């Protein structure tokens, strides 16, 4: 059967993938916690970020880890603009409209990428893509280990931003009570846009961490975003520790299901958890009352 070493390796690999999943889910949960909407464009924006990493690598030879520096602020700005100029005005403040606007955005972005880059799958050929680190009996992929560390670091930074800074305080105030926040002089539309920008910045970071070991094609975001939805629902909509723990957990579940059930059925474990959590406890592990 399966030796303990293989299972241990699957668990560790799952944790490493899970950390990046958590980062993607973090953007989603942040936007949900503040704007109370599910951003269906999250996956398409992730695809866009991954293509951005690929473009700067191919065009300027910029290392994906260095690409973090220009792409994170760029995607923050992009997210800010999208919320301020498209989602906000188009949805007239109605929740189900926001759902549809983000769906429309995701279709438009995804297919614009398809039209621009065709459905070819692209990878980066970095010289460290296949390097491994020996860790006791386990051989771990070096770029994925870096991704794990960086994803945890970004989660902590984001948590500090929300809990320690004035911007974070304003975001939390709007999340709790937007009318009250606007009464004490907080610009709610600005906070919404900042939050959406932060969500997109998380995606840029995730894309930079993923690209050394992963590939990109115009449909890739869909696969990630369904996993991210699961994590967000599991961890509790709007909860940052929930996103981190949920991400790690789902990463391990996916890795083990892949090991036991094979690749084609591997993802089914995730969706069954998703449906089960939605039906039994839609507020998740750490979520406040819906």
């Amino acid at each position: 059967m399966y030796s303990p070493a293989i299972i241990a390796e699957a668990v560790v690999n799952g944790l490493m993938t899970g950390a990046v999943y958590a980062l993607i889910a973090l953007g989603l949960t942040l936007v949900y916690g503040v704007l109370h909407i599910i951003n269906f464009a999250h996956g398409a924006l992730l695809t866009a970020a991954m293509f951005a990493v690929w473009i700067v690598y191919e065009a300027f030879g910029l290392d994906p880890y260095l690409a973090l520096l220009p792409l994170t602020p760029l995607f923050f700005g992009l997210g800010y603009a999208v919320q301020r100029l498209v989602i906000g005005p188009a949805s007239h403040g109605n929740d189900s409209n926001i759902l549809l606007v983000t769906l429309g955005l995701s279709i438009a972005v995804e297919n614009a990428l398809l039209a621009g880059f065709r459905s070819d799958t692209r990878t980066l050929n970095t010289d460290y893509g296949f390097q491994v680190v020996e860790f006791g009996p386990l051989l771990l992929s070096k770029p994925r280990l870096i991704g794990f560390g960086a994803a945890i670091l970004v989660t902590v930074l984001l948590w500090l931003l929300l809990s320690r800074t004035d911007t974070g305080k304003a975001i939390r105030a709007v999340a709790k009570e937007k009318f009250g926040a606007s009464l004490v002089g907080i610009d709610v539309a600005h906070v919404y846009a900042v939050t959406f920008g932060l969500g997109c910045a998380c995606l840029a970071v995730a894309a930079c961490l993923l690209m050394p070991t992963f590939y990109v094609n115009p449909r890739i975001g869909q696969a990630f975003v369904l996993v991210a939805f699961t994590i967000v629902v599991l961890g509790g909509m709007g909860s940052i520790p929930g996103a981190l723990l949920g991400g790690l957990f789902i990463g391990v579940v996916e890795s083990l299901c892949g090991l036991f059930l094979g690749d084609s059925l591997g993802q089914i474990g995730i969706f069954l958890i998703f449906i089960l959590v939605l039906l039994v406890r839609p507020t998740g592990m750490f979520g406040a009352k819906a």
Partner: protein
Amino acid sequence: MTFRDIVPTVVLIALLAFVPAFITANTVLNFLVFTLIISLAAQGWNILGGFGGQFSFGHAAFFGTGAYAAALLQARLGINPWIAFAIGTVAGAAVGWVIGYLSFRSGLRGSYFALVTLAFAEVLRILANAATFTGGAAGVLIKLDVRPSNFQFESRSAFFWIALALVGAVLVLTRWIECSRFGAQLVAVRENEAAAKALGVDTLRVKLGAITVSGAVTAAAGGLYAQYFLYVDANIAYGTWISVEAILAPIVGGLGTVFGPLVGAVALHGLGEITKLAAGSVPGIDLMVFGGLLVAAVAFAPEGIIGLLRRSARSKGTARHA
């Protein structure tokens, strides 16, 4: 509902029935049949989403069930395709009831309902893609055997008429729902579920009724698809593309209106063809336009094309009075 209520539908369908008399080009008929199939799937979505306000993002679950049932029952078990088609429609209703029972009983609504329907469709897609009974990733091929008793026809016009008849039947059904007590309760749930409940509407039963009918209609579209193209695989039947199509058409055409899905499907796919002609065969270009159109429709025409037409008719009317 009186006969007067369905006069516009009958007239429209009767007029459309003459289309194959003027158009014989196969590519155009292909386009029309495909558009009618999309319209049918969207009409199913509209009953639940438009009238009931429950936005499903996973109508592929029903479309795929109808398609797979039609294909598998005849390819594996040798059941007559017409009967397979009917069973597929009923299976779609059953899947609708089960998904509805599970999610509505747990009180899921809004974004949560959208997510859970999406997840159900994905689970079905993964299962269909992996199981051997469904042919796995290779899909199911329906054997070519052109006989009317076999639901296969020499000319594409026959398929056009069948699709048109189904679209017409669902138009009448939708109109009946709109006029009925059930429809009024459904709209009450959409507008304010708590208030509807307080007034004694059994909201769970009403929503369950809507998702069951909705599932049956969309499954019929799936069955028709399988029968027309004689091939089904998991990414066609349970793919997100059809969930998206089913949402887009009613919203662009007119959410919660009888003709909205049909108008929307024709407008979208007409525009899609024009875009393809203009931009060449760039993949995804038509869907890119659809996505933009969805955002624009929500922003500027929340009542869709039907709403715009009504508004312009009304403003003309008042101009005449003044």
